[in-house]
Every structure is written in C-alpha cells, then in structure tokens.
C-alpha cells in the first residue's frame, strides 16, 4: 500500500502553487511594552508570544503549548490577562502589554512575585511568569473571593510540578497585601 497521508493544504496544493511567496509583508505597529513604546515591524503570522521571545528578548513569557491550553504565555494586554500564543501581534497595534519583566518596581518585587517566592509557589519555574501575570489579572477582574473561586479562576494556568496549594496561598497573600494597601 502506498499513500500520502500528509494532506494537502486547502488553499495551495503544493509549494509550486505558491512559489516564491516572499515571506509575508510586514506592517508597522506600535506596542507599549512594560511602559516603553516600541515601534515594530511584524508579519501577520507572528504571535505576540513569539514576538516577545524571539525578537524582543523578553523571554520571561513562556511557551508551554502554543495553543492556549496551558497559560504559560499569559501576559496582560491593556490590563487583561490573555494567552499571548493565540494573539497575532499585528492585531494589537496601539495596545499596552505588561509581561513578567514589567511587574517589579526596580529591585523591589511586585507583591505577587514576592508572595510566590515566600510561599514556594513554583518548582521548575516555567509556568510561573504566566501564573503571576494571571493572578495579577485575576485580582483586577475582582471575581475571586473564596479559595474555591481563586482555584477556579487560576485554572487557566497549568503547573505540572503541582504547586497549586502554594499558588493558592501566594495569591491570597498578595491579595491580602493589596487589600491592606487599599484600606490604608
């Protein structure tokens, strides 16, 4: 039996149909990343995640699955947590992006970062930037009050090391610190 199982593309049947196609045209966009305005040339097929990691050397944002199934790539886009792996950078012209590199205030860790260290809320550290960005986004959203709500609303971030109880503790510590700050 002889067969070709790698199925042809829908739009092109072979490279010859679409030869030469020069790499896709790049467009100019502006992103404000961690407070710094950056003018960038991006191709349509570049995700925000790959842009950060491969072009801007902001490798704190992680690629775990590249399909929106793990949350390691979570960043804050205009303040909202999103999966940067499923975000085409070209679509976000004018947006503000906060990555894990943008959370600390100089040498002082963001309360969420400090809480993750204090509570040992990670092991290998690979899901950690995504967990922290997600937790910061979650607190802004304001829908998590109880332990079960935090667990549920932090469930978009897998941790294969299984640090979940410590992640819960860290989020609560940072949340309490934020509340105390607001009350003061």
């Amino acid at each position, binding site marked *: 039996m002889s067969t070709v*199982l*790698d*199925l042809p*593309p*829908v*739009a*092109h049947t072979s490279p010859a149909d*679409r030869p030469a*196609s020069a*790499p*896709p*045209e790049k*467009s100019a966009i502006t992103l404000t990343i961690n407070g710094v305005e950056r003018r960038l040339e991006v191709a*349509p*097929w570049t*995700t925000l995640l790959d842009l950060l990691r491969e072009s801007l050397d902001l490798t704190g944002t992680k690629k775990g699955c*590249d*399909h*929106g199934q793990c*949350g390691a790539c*979570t960043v804050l886009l205009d303040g*909202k*947590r*999103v*999966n940067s*792996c*499923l*975000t*085409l950078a*070209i*679509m976000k012209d004018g947006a503000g992006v906060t990555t894990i590199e943008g959370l600390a205030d100089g040498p002082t860790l963001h309360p969420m970062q400090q809480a993750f260290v204090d509570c040992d809320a990670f092991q290998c550290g690979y899901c950690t930037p995504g967990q922290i960005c*997600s937790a910061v*986004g*979650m607190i802004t*959203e304001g*829908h998590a009050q109880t332990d*079960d*709500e935090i*667990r*549920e*609303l932090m*469930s*978009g*971030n*897998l941790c294969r090391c299984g640090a979940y109880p410590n992640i819960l503790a860290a989020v609560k510590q940072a949340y309490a610190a934020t509340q105390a700050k607001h009350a003061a």
Partner: protein
Amino acid sequence: MINFSYTRAGGVAEAVREKSKANGAGRFIAGGTNLVDLLKENVERPTRIIDITRLPLTTVEEGPNGGLRLGALVSNADTAYHPEVQKRYPALARAILAGASPQLRNMATNGGNLLQRTRCYYFYDVALPCNKRVPGSGCPAIDGQNRVCGVLGTSEACIATHPSDMCVALAALEAVIRVSGPNGERTIPIADFHRLPGSTPHLETTLAADEIITAIDLPKNPYAEHSVYTKVRDRASYAFALVSVAALLELDGDTIKSARLALGGVAHKPWRLPEAEARLVGKTATKENFLPVAEALMKGATGYGHNTFKIELGKRAVVRALQLAAKGTAAVRGVNGQVAAAESVA
C-alpha cells in the same frame, strides 16, 4: 501555519466585501482563540485573514421586546459578567464561565464562540483522515478514540461534537443570531444555525461564506429564577464537556409551567428536543417526573465504544440539571456551573 495576508476591516460592509473577495480562502479573526490554534495545526489554511476586532459590535444593549442584544465582538468574559446577563440569563453566564479559561474568555468573542470547531482528535491531526477536514477521507473516530465524540445526530461521515458551552445555553434560550452579508441583514434562530453532520460534516453552520455575525439576540424569558448549567467533564475546570445541560424551568409553586433543556457534548450541535420539554409541563418538579424526559432526550442515541457512557451520563446529567434548576438559580453556588458538593440535591 501557512503564509497569509492580513487586512483590518473598518466596518461591517468592508469586512463582508473582503471576505467575498477572498473566495472561500478568507477567514475573519476576532479573539483568535480557535482560529490561531487551528492555523498552527494546519487545519485552517486561509490565504487571507480579515481582522474584525475594530468593528462597532462591542456592546450589550437592550434588545427588542424586552430582550437583550449581545454584540458579536463582546468578549465572553464581559458577556458572562454583564449584570443584565447575570440577572436575566444566568444559565448563559454560567455556561460561558464553565468554558475554557479566564484568559481565553477575555479574548474570545460571542460571534467566535458560535463558530468554534470540534475538538475531535482526528479533526485536529492533519496526518490522519477526517471527513470534516478533508471531505471523503473517512472518519476514523467511529472506530477510534472517540471519548469526546457525539452519540446523538451522528452520521456515518462524522461523529464530532460542537465544543461550545455558551451555545448550549443559547440553544435553551432560543437565541437569534443576527448576521450581515452582501444582501443585507438577516436573522437565524439558534436551532437552525448549527447543522448536523449528515454527509457534509465540513459544513457546520448555515452562515454563508460571505456573511458575518453581528449580534446575538436573547429573547425575554421567564426562567431567570430557575436556570442552571450543569457541566460534567474529566477534570474540574479547563476541560471540554463530556456532557453538559442547560436547564431552564418556569415554576408555579412545585408545578412546571414551561421548561427548556439543551445538551452539549453529545452532538454536532446543541441538542434540543422540544417535545421532551413539553412533557414536563403541568408536572411537579420531582426526580420521577424528570427521568422520562431524560430518557426521551437521549432516545436514539448511539454509542461508539469509548463514548457509549455518554448515553447514560446524559440522562443522569439531565435529571441533575433539572433538580438543580428546580431548587433555584440562587441555590446553586459556584462560579463555573460545575457540579460540586455545594450543589448537592440529596
């Protein structure tokens, strides 16, 4: 991921024009949560991508006749947490919050959610045949790993399910999809929006290739006090439904005045059977009265091995959802519509 060009549509008409121009090889993109995933898997191979995120379809407004109109580009999260949705359509809010993850719900839009594609393993794996992806290539799921596949309305060509939670609630709410195309606007009742696979599983909706979803109209309904969404899955969160049920009851004391039921995870579209719902009318809200309705809903179901359990699970989930709905929306706690100890019925 293949090479594609990108354009940003400034208005609905322009978006429609761009889509028509692309001759079937164009795709709208908004949240991107499903399309970018499929682009990377080489399941979707469009040559042109049309960004519709700047279209003015981003509001939740009062709709006609006391209903609510959800803009196609409102995010799933903003929809679910919208006070009017929470108050008037709690099953919808809960269904949305039972789906995906907080990040994905922040990105995904209402229009995109309607157009989600199946999670069948074979559809996603371009090395293998799939009638939905390559018509005529075969359906290996029928004899293969079909735990996630459907048991109702399946065909010899396809046993895939529609993966959305939101659409299950929309089906129960008898939402109306507003679309715009080259010939103007039209509306499609949710029941007619998604198709069964039949011999053309690659055709998933009745939306024409050059039409765009602009809004979802939620009719006024009497169910807000007794609306639940029960989702049964393989882990507590961030998993597609094995079976889910949107259950809406209108009660007069213990007596059911009217009922709506829709099932997810079991078919190529949200599954409804109005005649089964009608059997509840005039009955008291008891498990004994729910059971025959559950049986009727799952009637004719076919199992394919790994997913055969869904037939029994579907019945039990229907009964559970009705029991919870009878207890009342407010009595069922939890942000995710999941069955938890707190939602016990005993």
